[in-house]
């Protein structure tokens, strides 16, 4: 009972609606970000398949490109509507933020709007122009999608990084009096947040595609179609993984100086000191870290390349200005880093096998790793968002506005939160089901009539696709 009282008291203190508002934002953003990743990077992978198909007259690559386009049609639609939810929520959940800083953070969003336009327009041309547009013209109609995906991502990340490192505006008497778009867009955190997220999007998309075909190969579908599908996703993602680890490492060091309290939460640095150890895993409760692996001096080494490096702890700010759940931030950070290295390992394994034997590793373990790589990349990316968002708390705009001050004063966020959770659960399940249905349909088409002598004949649609394919 005492715990409940404490929660109620805390909620009353911080503004009643901020907790459900944060939960709702986390739910909708966490859902949308997966689709956003696919929206940013999947077109590039589809275009890669189409390019190889057209260049080498490769039927298999062309069929893959066509089928991925169809899946992309579903994913882009769900991504477009869940992205709109976030636009509304900026005002419906965070009117305080928009009232105060809308004129500043709105500008990168406006630039994003331009790229969203280009993306949506050329998605319409690319997805539905497969049959009637000539080959290379169709290919080039997809290039603006890939480009606007990257630039759009940069614009949205500009907003998030601005919230971490606000700047580029002057305020007077609580009102914004001038804004420098350039400085808002390329704020101090943008330099590492932008590449980190764009690389994450490419890794999520590439490994997700690879995972689908690795799962098929594990089930014995060892044909050129599956190996091509796997390679088209796996190779770009695996090539980008070491770059991502480098960017992430740089970002962590930058955060150590830009947002020391966030860094302290990521690494369990309670007190500002030298010779700081690194904790791998572990749960921090009341000054003790349980079940963690302690590596002496390691954190100081990572943060400043020397065991004596001074690392700022969260004791540098009053308790009210520290993030709420330190162990969540730390564990998410560890999971993200761990999964990143696991994916690096998978890539290195494949590279070694290719270098020595000119083939992908035949071991079952490799394909198991490939099959879970998509999921691993998604989990790592979500964990990264938890680190950056929860780690910024209690601020929505770092050191300028608290999340509680930004939240809506309307009651009933619990109601919209419950509705959103149910709706998104159904939406997510339906998206997966539809994609699986498409996959089943394609498999039936590939099997062709001859392979199902005792089963029902495939529908006419499937037959035509099958003949076109394999």
């Amino acid at each position, binding site marked *: 009972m005492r715990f409940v009282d404490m929660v109620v008291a805390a909620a009353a203190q911080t503004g009643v609606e901020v907790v459900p508002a944060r939960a709702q934002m986390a739910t909708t953003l966490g859902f949308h970000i997966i689709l956003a990743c696919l929206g940013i990077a999947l077109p590039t992978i589809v275009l890669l398949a189409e390019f190889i198909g057209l260049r080498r007259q490769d039927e298999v690559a*062309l069929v893959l490109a066509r089928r991925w386009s169809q899946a992309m*049609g579903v994913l882009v639609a769900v991504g*477009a509507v869940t992205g709109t939810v976030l636009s509304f929520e900026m005002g*419906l959940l965070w009117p305080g933020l928009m009232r105060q800083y809308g*004129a500043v953070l709105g500008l990168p*969003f406006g630039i994003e709007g331009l790229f969203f336009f280009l993306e949506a327009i050329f*998605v319409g041309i690319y997805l539905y122009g497969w049959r*009637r547009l000539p080959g290379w013209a169709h290919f080039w109609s997809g290039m603006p999608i890939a480009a606007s995906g990257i630039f759009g991502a940069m614009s949205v990340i500009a907003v998030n990084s601005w919230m971490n490192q606000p700047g580029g505006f002057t305020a007077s008497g609580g009102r914004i009096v001038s804004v420098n778009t350039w400085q808002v867009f390329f704020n101090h955190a943008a330099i590492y947040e932008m590449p980190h997220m764009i690389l994450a999007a490419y890794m999520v998309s590439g490994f997700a595609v690879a995972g689908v075909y690795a799962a098929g190969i594990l089930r014995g579908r060892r044909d050129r179609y599956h190996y091509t599908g796997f390679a088209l996703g796996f190779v770009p993602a695996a090539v980008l993984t070491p770059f991502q680890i480098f960017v992430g490492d740089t970002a962590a060091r930058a955060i150590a100086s830009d947002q020391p309290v966030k860094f302290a939460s990521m690494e369990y640095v309670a007190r500002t000191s030298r010779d700081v150890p690194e904790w791998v895993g572990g749960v921090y409760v009341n000054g003790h870290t349980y079940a963690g692996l302690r590596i002496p001096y390691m954190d100081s080494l990572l943060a400043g390349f020397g065991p004596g490096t001074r690392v700022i702890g969260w004791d540098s700010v009053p308790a009210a200005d520290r993030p709420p759940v330190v162990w969540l931030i730390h564990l998410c950070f560890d999971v993200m880093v761990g999964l990143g290295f696991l994916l690096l390992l998978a890539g290195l394994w494949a590279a070694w096998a290719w270098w020595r034997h000119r083939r992908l590793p035949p071991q079952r373990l490799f394909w198991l790793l490939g099959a879970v790589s998509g999921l691993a990349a998604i989990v790592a990316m979500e964990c990264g968002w938890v680190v950056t968002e929860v780690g910024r708390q209690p601020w929505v705009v770092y050191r300028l506005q608290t999340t509680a001050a930004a939240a809506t004063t309307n009651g009933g966020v619990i109601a919209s939160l419950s*509705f959103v959770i149910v709706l998104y659960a159904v939406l997510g399940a339906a998206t997966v089901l539809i994609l699986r249905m498409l996959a089943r349909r394609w498999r039936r088409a590939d099997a062709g009539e001859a392979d199902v002598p005792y089963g029902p004949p495939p529908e006419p649609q499937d037959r035509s696709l099958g003949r*076109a394919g394999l």
Partner: protein
Amino acid sequence: VTAAAVGGILLASVTLYAVLGGADFGGGLWDLLAGGDRRGRAPRRLIDESITPVWEANHVWLVFDLVIFWTAFPHAFAAVMTAAALPLWLALAGIVLRGAGFAFRKEARRLSLQRGLGAIFAFSSLLTPFFMGTVIGAIATGQIPADASHASLAAWTSATSLLTGFLFTGACGYLAAVYLAGEAARGGDRQLQAYFTRRAQAAGIVAGALSLAALAELHGSDPALYGRLTGRALPLVITAGLCGLAVLALLTAGWRNGVWGIGVRVIAALGVAAVIWGWGVAQYPVLLPGTAVTLSNAGAPHTTLVAIVWLSVAAVVLVGPSFALLFSLQERRLLHADDVGTVLATAPAGQAQPPAGASGRPPPPAAPPGVRAAVLGLVALGALVRALVRRRRGR
């Protein structure tokens, strides 16, 4: 001056959302009213084909509207989003369910599944225009306080607001029917063309009646707004009426393809645009009627407003031609909904997709000159990029 320009930009993009995105919602209305599986087969197919390649691009106007609104007028934005939270949540639910239902239905093969998803798509298509309309009604009649801290039910449930909601739904249906009649005519389907012409006429009359009813209601409930609508904004109100009457007359005269067909659709869109601009002119320069919030004091500094003007210039330069390409390709029937997706199971068997050629891509049919130019443009762009890449490699 900059604030007025940005106000104009916001109103222009709201107008574009209404005449482009609104018609996609109107398509949902006609999908809902198309009847049983058998009777509704042909119109549903046409609606599906017409909306598929363009609805996402049209939808982006809404996102663009929101962004300009909160960037240029953050105080007014926060007030609207707080006071009118409930209808906005409902409109948002409509957006999510409409988009997802539509995209999923396309891939569904079983009839029962198509029915269910189609119902979600069609019903939710009504939610968004209706609740958006009530929000606009609430703003226009001065129900949004400048420092709103709580959602208000009374703000958007006044007679004017509800009438505006119905008017928006009707106008969406009207636009959709006019556009769909044009699509049917270009496909050479006289029966469907007559089908949607009748519906366009009916929806036009309903929308006109609702506009007059809203005007009459304002005469009693908000004489100030009524006075401005019949004063300063009178030319636009008259334009809206004339456009509506012109479309009705032209539709009665019968449909012809080419410039005529495009002309009718443009006039219909102009009619709806005139209503929106009539509202804008009537309340200029006040942003939230009944408060002191105007275009120039709604919270954004001058530098932000200038940046938005530049942003919209960039939009015209980048997005304008892209939209032109998209619409011209669709107008020439080069974008096919049933290409990547599948033909709705309810589609007539004879109209099923022909088997694909060897590469999964049969030779394109002889394209009209405009398309050839567009395609040539794309190829030329591609060749240019490739040449540049080669030159760099050569170095």
